[in-house]
C-alpha cells in the first residue's frame, strides 16, 4: 500500500491544475486580502484568513484524490486494470483516503508560513498543532464527498462538479465572505454544511477557544451519510457488471 500511496502522491503533485488549486489560488487570495486591518472575535483578519485558506486548500486536496482523479480512472479503465491486480478494494480505498489526507500538508504548511511571515500572525506551537489536527480529522468528510463525486460523475464532469461543490461550500460555509454578511436564509443553509463546521473548528483552534463538540459531531455525521451514499453507488456499479 505504501508503494501505491507514494506513486499516487508523486503523480498528483505533477498535476498543474491541482497544485494551482490547492496552493496557487489560496496563496493569491491571502496575499490580496490578509493586509486588511480588523479584529473579529479576538482574531486578526490575517489569522482568520489563514485558517479560511488552509481549510479551502485542505478541502480541495482531500476531494481531489477520491473525486476527479477517481472519476478519470474509472472512465479510462485504469480502475479495471487495478481490479485484476492483487491490490484489494479496501486497501485501495485506504490508500486513496491516505492520499487525500497527506496531500493537505503542502497547502497547510504554505499557509502557516505565509500567515506567520506575511500576515504577522502570532500563534503558539500548540495552537498550530491543534489546527493541524483539526484539519486532518475535519477533511475526512471531504475525502468521502470526493468519493461520491468520483463515483457519480465521469472524468470530465467530475472536475466541474468538484469546483462548483467547493465554491458553494466555501461561500455558504463562511470561508470566503464573513458569515454575518450572508442573508439569513443562506446562513441557515450554510450552518448545515461541513465547510461551516470545519472552518469554525479552525478558528476556535487558533483563538484557543473550546473547539465545539457540535462541530465535530456534524462533521462525523456528514462523513457517515456521504459514506453510505458512496457504498451504495459502489455496490450499484459492481452489481451491474
Amino acid at each position, binding site marked *: 500500500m505504501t*508503494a501505491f500511496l507514494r506513486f499516487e502522491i508523486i503523480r498528483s503533485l*505533477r498535476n498543474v491544475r491541482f497544485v494551482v488549486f490547492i496552493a496557487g489560488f489560496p496563496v493569491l487570495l491571502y496575499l490580496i486580502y490578509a493586509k486588511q486591518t480588523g479584529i473579529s472575535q479576538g482574531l486578526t483578519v490575517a489569522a482568520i484568513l489563514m485558517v479560511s485558506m488552509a481549510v479551502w486548500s485542505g478541502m480541495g486536496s482531500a476531494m481531489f484524490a477520491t473525486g476527479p482523479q477517481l472519476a478519470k480512472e474509472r472512465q*479510462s*479503465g*485504469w480502475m479495471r486494470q487495478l481490479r485484476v491486480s*492483487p491490490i484489494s478494494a479496501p486497501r485501495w480505498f485506504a490508500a486513496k483516503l491516505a492520499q487525500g489526507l497527506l496531500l493537505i500538508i503542502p497547502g497547510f504548511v504554505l499557509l502557516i508560513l505565509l500567515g506567520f511571515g506575511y500576515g504577522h500572525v502570532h500563534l503558539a506551537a500548540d495552537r498550530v498543532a491543534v489546527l493541524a489536527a483539526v484539519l486532518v480529522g475535519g477533511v475526512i468528510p471531504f475525502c468521502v464527498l470526493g468519493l461520491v463525486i468520483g463515483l457519480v460523475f465521469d472524468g470530465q464532469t467530475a472536475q466541474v462538479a468538484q469546483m462548483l461543490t467547493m465554491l458553494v461550500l466555501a461561500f455558504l460555509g463562511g470561508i470566503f465572505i464573513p458569515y454575518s454578511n450572508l442573508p439569513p436564509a443562506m446562513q441557515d443553509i450554510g450552518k448545515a454544511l461541513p465547510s461551516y463546521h470545519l472552518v469554525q473548528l479552525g478558528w476556535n483552534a487558533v483563538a484557543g477557544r473550546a473547539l465545539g463538540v457540535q462541530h465535530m459531531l456534524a462533521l462525523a455525521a456528514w462523513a457517515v451519510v456521504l459514506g453510505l451514499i458512496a457504498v451504495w453507488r459502489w455496490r450499484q456499479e459492481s452489481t451491474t457488471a
Partner: protein
Amino acid sequence: MITNKQGATGPAVAFRDVVKVYHPDIKALDHVSFDIQPGETVALLGPNGAGKSTAIDTMLGLRTPTSGEVRILGGTAAAAVAAGQIGGMLQTSGLPEGARVAELIGLFRQLYRDRRSTGELLMLAGIDDLADRRVEQLSAGQTQRVRFALALAGHPELLFLDEPTAALDVAARRHFWQSVETIARQGTTVLFATHYLEEADANATRIIVVNYGRVIADGTPARIKAFTATRTLRFAMPAPDPSELLKLPGVTDVLVNGDAVTARTGDADETLPALYALGRKVRAMEVGGGGLEEALIALTSADNGSNTERVS
C-alpha cells in the same frame, strides 16, 4: 496433467455452461463451455460483439456470470487475482496521468510477491526507450506495450490478453508475439482474443471460435483453417435431392428448402462441374467465398434455419 502452484491438478480455466445476459434480449454468452489446460496458448477468435471480451472479463472476475461455473486455476477468479496468479491486459485501459512508465512498472512489480525484473519487463514489452516517458506522452501503440508489461509484472501462471495488438504496427506486433511465445515456453498458459484468423493461426496452439455468444468451433489451427476453405453454394433446382447432392465431390452439408439449396463444400472447383454434370436445371448460383467473416457465416449458417430440412 501439469500441476499448478497450488498443488492441484486440473484445467487452468474451466468454463462450464456459462451464460451472461446484459439485457433480457441480449445473451453475450449463451451456454459457453470449454476447458483450457495448463501450458496451452489459446486464441478466442470471433468478430466484434461475439462475446470474447465478456468471456475474458468473466475469467478475470470483472463480471459475474448470470449462470454457469467459472473456475480459474482450481478456484475462483477473485482468489486467483488476489494471489497474483493471473495477468490481464484489457481491451481498453488508459494509464494514470502524471506517472512515468518506469514508475508504473515499479508500482506493479511491488503489488506482486513473485515478480519479473524491470529489465526483463522492458525487454519483453519492447519499451526500453520509454522508461522515463510520462504516460500522457505515449502513443496508443506505446500505451498498449506498457500495458503488456504491467500484465507480465507478476510472473502470471495464466495470462489473458484482450485484442492485445490492436494498436501495434507490424514490427511491434512481431516483437509482441515473440514475447508471448517466450512466456508460453516458460510455462505460462495464455488466452488471447482476436478477430484476425491469421493472428490466431500463427500464435495459438488451439483456436476457439465464438459468435453470437456461442462456441461454434474449437480445435487446432489447422482444423479451423480448413473451415475457411469452405465455400457456400446457394442455388435453385427443381426437386433437389439432398442425398444426391451430398454425393458430389467436396460437399459436406446440404440444406434444402423447396427449390432452394444451400450446400457447403471444401472444394468448390470440384463440386461445381460435378453439379452441372448432373444435367439438372441449376439456376441462380451464388458462391460465398473465403475470409474470416465468410468462414464464420459458414460456421454459423447451420444455426439459422429452423424450418429447413438439414442433412449432413
